[in-house]
């Protein structure tokens, strides 16, 4: 393949990623729904999963907290988002056995520019997008493992990277099993998948006594329609996020139907060519991933009661309740079939100019049919700068007496004017240098999904006490040393007696006297530390294996010379 043919898909992938993110790459931090990045996330107990709440952001928070000691949070966020999108597209390109340029460009566009990517960006599920980017590379490395019989060093980096959240870790594990299990590899494959998911598995188990997943969430977070497409068809088009607020307006029009028809048409045309060219086991791996992802997503839509029972009674069962998140497993096959379909169509066009133009059209069509994903989802992804009060609050909490922070009002989401009136999970807690007790209750379509941190209930009971002094005493007794109030957020923030450390238009920070710092049980520390050592050991081992193999190859070449 000539140089420009090799570089064009890379340039196309980068151009698509830049067009998609647009203003999100400008100065400031992007805060959208669950994506809450701060200038410097503190390395504190809850990022390792030993805070009082369920470890929902393990291991992603720990990775960010450590990396932003080296790279500023703002730059790191942009590197992660841009890098994930480009890596995703280039991975999909490599999966396509049809080496024609058009097939590769179509696969890149379909994988990078679709409702799944747009909706997960809007709702802020960046670890899911990192897992999405890693998925094709895991499938490719799994193939290499089968072919060579030697564990590729890259997998020791890719699998933990694809497991930055629990659901991403499960998807990565399914892909790894589908691509590499068999013969004597099954044991190592299972061990690798377990090791990569160990931080959230272990710290989740430490909280098992308090963990309870509200059954109400199963119905609310199930696979939903994607604009005009009903849920089962939305799933085929890689859409169907539960939250209608993050679905782009273009999904409400004929473009959604046209896009689905074209995607299915290309997939049907490409299936035969793909089966002929691809390795049989690759076919099995991609079809298994697609079937597992689709089946689980459809299950959340067809049988929310069953999913609710799973979430309530089976540890970790709550992982499947966000139905469309599992469609991450369907995307590789969809992109590969679309690419092969485009290649099959173009081979029927004998003349050069029409072939070139048609190839360009097919590569561009996903953008044409989802135009409002461009430029940061039509301006939805707009970075912001935290008010100066947030840095002042961090300093104030740093200098306060012992104890955790209680964030008020006791509600999860904010919609501050300084964030362009866009919704975001309360960012105050992540700005502070200590563990924070904050509401983890979610309200969706006026239905409340109960939270999981028992200390929140305890704090609510303390706040219900009669006078500010009594509230302060009860909060101190449960280990709360500071109360931080977001004054711009709706909801009640009962007064608590104490020394005012900060009082601005946005925030009020009060020190509560007499609190003792919460101690993490030694057994928790030991268990969590062991899990983290294993997790960090994987990429380190990968680097060591790669270096050793490179050295062996160099010595082998020198000996032959």
């Amino acid at each position, binding site marked *: 393949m000539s140089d420009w043919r090799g570089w064009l898909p890379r340039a196309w992938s980068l151009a698509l990623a830049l067009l998609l993110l647009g203003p999100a790459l400008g100065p400031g931090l992007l805060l959208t729904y669950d994506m809450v990045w701060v200038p410097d996330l503190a390395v504190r107990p809850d990022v390792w999963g030993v805070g009082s709440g369920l470890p929902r952001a393990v291991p992603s928070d720990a990775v960010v907290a450590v990396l932003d000691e080296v790279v500023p949070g703002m730059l790191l966020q942009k590197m992660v988002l841009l890098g994930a999108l480009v890596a995703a597209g280039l991975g999909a390109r490599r999966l396509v056995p049809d080496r024609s340029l058009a097939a590769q460009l179509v696969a890149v566009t379909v994988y990078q520019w679709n409702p799944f990517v747009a909706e997960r960006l809007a709702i802020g599920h960046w670890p899911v997008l990192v897992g999405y980017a890693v998925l094709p590379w895991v499938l490719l490395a799994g193939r290499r493992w089968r072919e060579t019989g030697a564990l590729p060093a890259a997998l020791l980096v890719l699998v933990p990277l694809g497991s930055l959240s629990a659901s991403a870790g499960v998807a990565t594990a399914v892909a790894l099993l589908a691509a590499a299990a068999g013969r004597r590899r099954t044991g190592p494959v299972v061990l690798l998948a377990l090791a990569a998911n160990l931080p959230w598995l272990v710290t989740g188990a430490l909280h098992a006594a308090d963990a309870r997943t509200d059954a109400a969430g199963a119905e609310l977070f199930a696979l939903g*329609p994607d604009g005009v497409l009903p849920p089962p068809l939305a799933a085929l088009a890689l859409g169907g996020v539960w939250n209608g607020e993050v679905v782009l*307006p*273009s999904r409400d029009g004929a473009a959604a139907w046209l896009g689905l028809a074209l995607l299915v048409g290309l997939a049907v045309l490409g299936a035969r060519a793909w089966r002929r060219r691809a390795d049989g086991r690759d076919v099995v791996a991609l079809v298994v991933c697609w079937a597992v992802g689709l089946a689980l997503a459809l299950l959340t839509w067809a049988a929310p009661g069953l999913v609710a029972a799973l979430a309530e009674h089976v540890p970790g069962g709550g992982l499947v309740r966000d139905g469309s998140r599992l469609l991450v497993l369907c995307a590789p096959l969809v992109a590969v079939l679309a690419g092969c379909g485009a290649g099959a169509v173009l081979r029927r066009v004998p003349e050069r100019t029409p072939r070139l133009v048609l190839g360009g059209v097919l590569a561009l069509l996903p953008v044409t049919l989802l135009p409002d994903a461009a430029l940061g*989802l039509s301006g*939805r992804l707009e970075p912001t700068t935290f008010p100066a009060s947030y840095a002042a609050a961090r300093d104030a909490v740093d200098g306060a007496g012992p104890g955790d922070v209680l964030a008020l009002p006791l509600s999860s989401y*904010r919609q501050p004017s300084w964030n362009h009136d*866009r919704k975001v999970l309360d960012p105050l807690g992540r700005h502070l240098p200590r563990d924070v007790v904050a509401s983890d209750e979610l309200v969706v*379509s006026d239905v409340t999904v109960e939270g999981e941190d028992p200390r929140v209930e305890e704090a609510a009971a303390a706040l219900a006490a009669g006078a500010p002094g009594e509230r302060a005493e009860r909060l101190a007794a449960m280990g709360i040393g500071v109360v931080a109030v977001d004054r711009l957020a*709706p*909801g009640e923030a009962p007064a608590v007696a104490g020394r005012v450390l900060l009082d601005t238009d946005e925030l009020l920070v009060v020190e509560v006297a007499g609190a003792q710092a919460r101690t993490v049980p030694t057994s928790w520390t030991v268990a969590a530390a062991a899990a983290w050592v294993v997790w960090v050991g994987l990429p380190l081992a990968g680097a060591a294996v790669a270096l050793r193999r490179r050295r062996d190859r160099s010595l082998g070449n020198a000996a032959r010379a």
Partner: protein
Amino acid sequence: MGSILSTFGSLAIGGIVASATIVGVVSSQTSPSGESPANVNQPVIQYGSEG
């Protein structure tokens, strides 16, 4: 003759798709996408609403 027709036909289709893409992207940027400010009287900011 057929060759000329298919060449011009494909160029026309390519032009239409390219134009539609540009028009779609530009018009979606000019349509309002902002959210209404939070109402301080509402009890809580909702995580979202079902589609």
